[in-house]
């Protein structure tokens, strides 16, 4: 598993208040109950702060999985 994934997994676990073991490289909002709409918004804010990036409304709606977030962070 890559370093970017480890970093992201740690952040997601902290925001969603779950263990890191519950988060896989393919995890998304649709297969993780704790990742509800409120948690998603909090995750987007945490991403902005952790990675010093700006997330627009289209990205908020689109970044609903670990692969999508990793791809976005890599491109930023």
């Amino acid at each position: 598993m890559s370093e970017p994934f480890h970093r992201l997994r740690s952040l997601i676990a902290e925001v969603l208040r779950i263990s890191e073991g519950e988060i896989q490289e393919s995890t998304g909002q649709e297969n993780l109950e704790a990742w509800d709409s409120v948690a998603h918004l909090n995750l987007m804010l945490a991403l902005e702060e952790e990675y010093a990036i700006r997330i627009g409304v289209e990205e908020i709606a689109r970044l609903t999985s670990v692969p999508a977030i990793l791809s976005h962070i890599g491109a930023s």
Partner: protein
Amino acid sequence: MLEKEWPPSGGRLRYAEVPWDTAAFGFPVYQLFVEASYPGFSDDLASLSAHLAPAHDGGALVFTKVPPTDIELLIALGKIGFYPVETQIEAHTSLADFTWERRFEGLQLRPATPVDVPALLSLARTAFRLDRYHLDPNVSDQQAGVRLEKWLAQGIERGDIVMVFEDRSSSKTIGFCLLQERSDRLVDFLLGAVETRLQGAGIGLVMYGECFLACRDSGFRNLVTRISLHNVDVLNVFAELGCRFRHPRLTVHRFIPDPS
């Protein structure tokens, strides 16, 4: 709405035609006002349904809102063909100490202007999926959408508070809030939604948080609204904003088909 008694002249049932729903659907819609069952309730209900049924082409829809714990009343309504469609719960909160800091730079809530109206009406027509008419198989999605569009249009016409939620990067309207001032610095949140494709991503939390803040800054001290229990995302959003919940009401419908 003009309430009538049934049976006429002293009956214990009260009902009224709901003109805005009738206008949206093209068939008459009536609301029954029932607080509790009583001896002869089922008979009154049956005779009222018969009275309403044959008078109109295209059928009619009758609904009532009852406490979900009044099982006796629900059984009586069920026996004559009423079916449950939605339980709403009242959410309320004090705005006095409300704070909101989860902001995104590109998202803005602002008062609506006449230029915004077409986009707002389009949103109202298309953004809802879980209200009682969208869930009722006897009402089409198109009819249910038109009803909400008309609801918003009426709010605009009578001068209710209308807020636009905008994505500033594209200047696109992505949500709206319709509110009405009540007495004693209470604001009633009547209707709100974000664009369908953006739902489930927490964007509503930002919009409602900004809206609560705007209400607080306008001098309102308390806010009340009603939320469908089907709409878990919105319930979670309002809980996150500090709301508490009370007064659940179950809405039951009865569709009376066209006798022809």
